[in-house]
């Protein structure tokens, strides 16, 4: 059955090729149905491999099984964590294709299949990236998902912001990818291997790390943290997510950014965790610094947004910061918690973007101020939005809350406070939007601030402004939120996720207790949800809270939309990585 593993990549590729070839001959309905069917088939394949085949599923593509421990081929190394991510990607792609059923006004002339084809290529890139055990192959799939994502971000070429966001996204991510490739070159020259496990073993055989190992670590992490949008590599993310078509945002925020965290984990565990790699103290210091920085900046910036999609984008930055903190603790409990958190977050964030898309298409605006009190008739969307906000804030029994609780327990009191605060602020911002837009609570906020992106006068993404929201657009966020709920409620899911994380993390000898609800975790979850509600209430009562001269303005001015600034920060981030990790190799 191992031989079927490459098909998780090949199937969506075949679907994309079909759609491009036949796209000019078939009507749009057929093209979209084919896209959905292929995504579903891939999801079924990954789920089958996940549930029915003993882990890990290892396949040397082309039959290049190693002789005497060496091979010239590419290995796909799919443990439960990798297959779980691939399944998550595939299911979310399916949800996105259903959501975008007859979504865009009109596909490019004679290219009815181009949007589903691009989404399938995106799926193939992400599946390839999570399944591969080869470092260069990971770079190739990393680039594939990048290229597709840039094109999808700029999809609405009539929108000035969209093409700018797509370009910024492309330039910063490509720069990160090239840094990553330099790192791969360094590791190849040292070890003469490209399979991650073999690189790790060769480094360990050589003894204590030196400057070359450090540089490779720094360069690889630069690429991965750019993708994960860790501060100060994060600037591209809000620009891209605010402008990309909503279905694309669901994929970008729901899984692609998290793949940066996944890649960081994978690279650390398989290459740098041994005695020849980077010592755990240095890794913890590095990841905690980037994690806390991202969580803080993301949460503050999230709170001060009025463009709803940009607000959600910054909340992704904040939550990715939390994931990095959990990963950086290097404790099996925290890793299991983070895996659950990512799973729950994918459902919740995708659902929230889906609801934002409904607002955009119904009212031609995505601006919190302009939409004040305008959407009372969208009751179900309002319920979804509130539920999403509470889930982000960590209200039990959502999967996000379980992941947060489990990680907090492993993290100690100070970091637990960060988790509570960050989830309360991001969830509170969503609740504030809910209260204003759907409930019309509080006075209408005054339009004053200069240094910000507003969401007024945006083009709806559908043919015309919707008068009635289609059932598919309403069903998908509901299903996604239900999924996030199930992650927290079904015991089998949490123990499976826990054991998958344990299996993937290096050096777990004692199998820890599977992730579970504890009284303290429940309490902290309720506390942060209550805090979020209180913050939202306070904000709608005092709208002058977002007045123009403010202590947070300098931070907001850094988000200038200027490619040069973003590149400077990316380079500075690489230097910061080096500074944080250097003590690990000094003897």
């Amino acid at each position, binding site marked *: 059955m191992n031989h079927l593993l490459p098909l998780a990549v*090949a199937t969506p*590729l075949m679907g994309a090729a079909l759609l491009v070839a036949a796209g000019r001959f078939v009507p749009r309905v057929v093209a979209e149905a084919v896209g959905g069917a292929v995504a579903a088939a891939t999801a079924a394949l990954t789920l089958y491999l996940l549930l029915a085949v003993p882990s890990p599923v290892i396949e040397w593509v*082309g039959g290049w099984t190693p002789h005497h421990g060496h091979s010239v*081929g590419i290995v796909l190394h799919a443990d439960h964590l990798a297959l779980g991510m691939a399944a998550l990607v595939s299911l979310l792609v399916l949800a996105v294709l259903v959501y975008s059923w007859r979504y865009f006004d009109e596909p*490019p002339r004679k*290219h009815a299949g181009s949007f589903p084809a691009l989404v399938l290529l995106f799926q*193939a890139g992400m599946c390839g990236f999570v399944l591969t055990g080869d470092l260069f*192959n990971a770079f*190739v799939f990393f680039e594939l998902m990048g290229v597709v994502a840039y094109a999808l971000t700029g999809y609405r070429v009539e929108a000035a912001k969209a093409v700018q966001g797509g370009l910024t996204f492309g330039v910063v991510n490509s720069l990160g990818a090239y840094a990553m490739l330099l790192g791969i070159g*360094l590791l190849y020259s040292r070890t003469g291997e490209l399979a991650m496990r073999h690189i790790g073993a060769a480094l360990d055989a050589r003894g204590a790390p030196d400057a070359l190992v450090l540089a490779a670590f720094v360069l690889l992490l630069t690429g991965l943290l750019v993708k994960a949008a860790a501060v100060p590599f994060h600037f591209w993310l809000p620009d891209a997510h605010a402008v990309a078509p909503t279905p694309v945002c669901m994929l970008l925020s729901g899984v692609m950014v998290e793949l940066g965290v996944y890649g960081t984990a994978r690279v650390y565990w398989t290459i740098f965790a041994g005695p020849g790699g980077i010592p755990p103290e240095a890794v913890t210091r590095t990841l905690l610094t980037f994690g806390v920085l991202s969580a803080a900046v993301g949460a503050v910036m999230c709170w001060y947004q009025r463009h709803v999609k940009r607000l959600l984008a910054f909340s992704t930055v904040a939550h990715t910061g939390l994931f990095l903190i959990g990963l950086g603790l290097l404790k099996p409990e925290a890793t299991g918690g983070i895996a659950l958190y990512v799973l729950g977050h994918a459902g919740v964030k995708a659902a929230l973007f889906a609801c934002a898309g409904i607002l955009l298409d119904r009212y031609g605006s995505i601006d919190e101020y302009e939409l004040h009190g305008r959407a009372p008739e969208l009751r179900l969307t309002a319920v979804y939005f509130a539920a999403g906000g509470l889930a982000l804030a960590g209200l039990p029994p959502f999967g996000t809350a379980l992941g947060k609780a489990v990680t907090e327990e492993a993290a100690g009191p100070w970091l637990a406070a960060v988790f509570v605060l960050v989830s309360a602020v991001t969830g509170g911002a969503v609740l504030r939007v809910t209260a204003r837009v759907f409930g019309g609570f509080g006075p209408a906020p005054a339009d004053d601030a200069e240094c910000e992106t507003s969401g007024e006068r945006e083009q709806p993404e559908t043919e015309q402004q919707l008068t009635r929201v289609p059932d598919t657009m309403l069903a998908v966020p509901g299903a996604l939120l239900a999924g996030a709920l199930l992650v927290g409620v079904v015991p089998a899911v949490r123990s499976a996720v826990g054991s998958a994380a344990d299996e993937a993390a290096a050096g777990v000898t004692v199998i820890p207790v599977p992730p579970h609800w504890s009284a303290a975790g429940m309490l902290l979850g309720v506390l942060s949800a209550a805090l979020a509600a209180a913050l939202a209430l306070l904000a709608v009562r005092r709208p002058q809270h977002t007045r123009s001269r403010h202590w947070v303005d300098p931070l907001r001015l850094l988000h200038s939309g200027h490619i040069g600034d973003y590149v400077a920060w990316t380079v500075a981030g690489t230097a910061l990585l080096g500074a944080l990790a250097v003590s690990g190799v000094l003897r």
Partner: protein
Amino acid sequence: MNRRLRMWVLLLGLAGTAAVLAAAAFRLPAFGTDFHPYGDRAVREALARQTANTVAAVNFDQRAFDTLGEETILFAAVLGTVVLLRQARDERHVEPAPADVAAPVRRYALVLLPVTLVAGLYIVAHGQLTPGGGFQGGVVAATALHLLYIAVDYRALERIRPLGVFEVGDAAGEAAYLVIGVAGLLAGSSYLANTILPHGTFNTLSSGGTVPLLNAAIGMEVACAVVVLLARFLDQAVEIEGEGENAGGNAGEGERK
């Protein structure tokens, strides 16, 4: 962020990165080292499968899965460009004007066209033997067609370049690679296994097993993809105009108001 602050952030970052990279450079094996374990294995395996061009063996046999990803990146970029450079709602399509071409240029380009086309196909077909292969040959072949633009004008190019056909060809090349991969699976080996065909005689056209087949698939995809890609950019320059733009003006220039 003002220019000064950006410079400071940038210079700090560059200094730190430079330190990391320089320190690593001095720990790398000396330039020209004999330590190439993967390379040595790759050469051995390439010769065992009768592939004279060992780089092709790495690309299309040992690490053929990388090449699948690489080909797909091209495929995705072309699809992305088709989408991004489509005619927007506020733009219109104008007929390209006929162009005068100096006679020597015309003669030279028309002579060069078939030569370039044959050279491209030759490079694709000999990928398993000599430097080159599907990517290189495909680009050369695609360039050949565009000599018609230089020799005659854009309308002449459009006549021999039915974009629909080339788009299908692009997808067919991608699909062919995938199908050859599945053939390995169906033959009882694994995906993209180079065991379904005999490996042939060393240093002849019929050597390397599936390497020439994969090269042909790539050659087809690349040639078609480059044609479609260039067509999109050329359309922007020649045919697509924004509102209120003068006939013959170039879309995509920054000056227009």
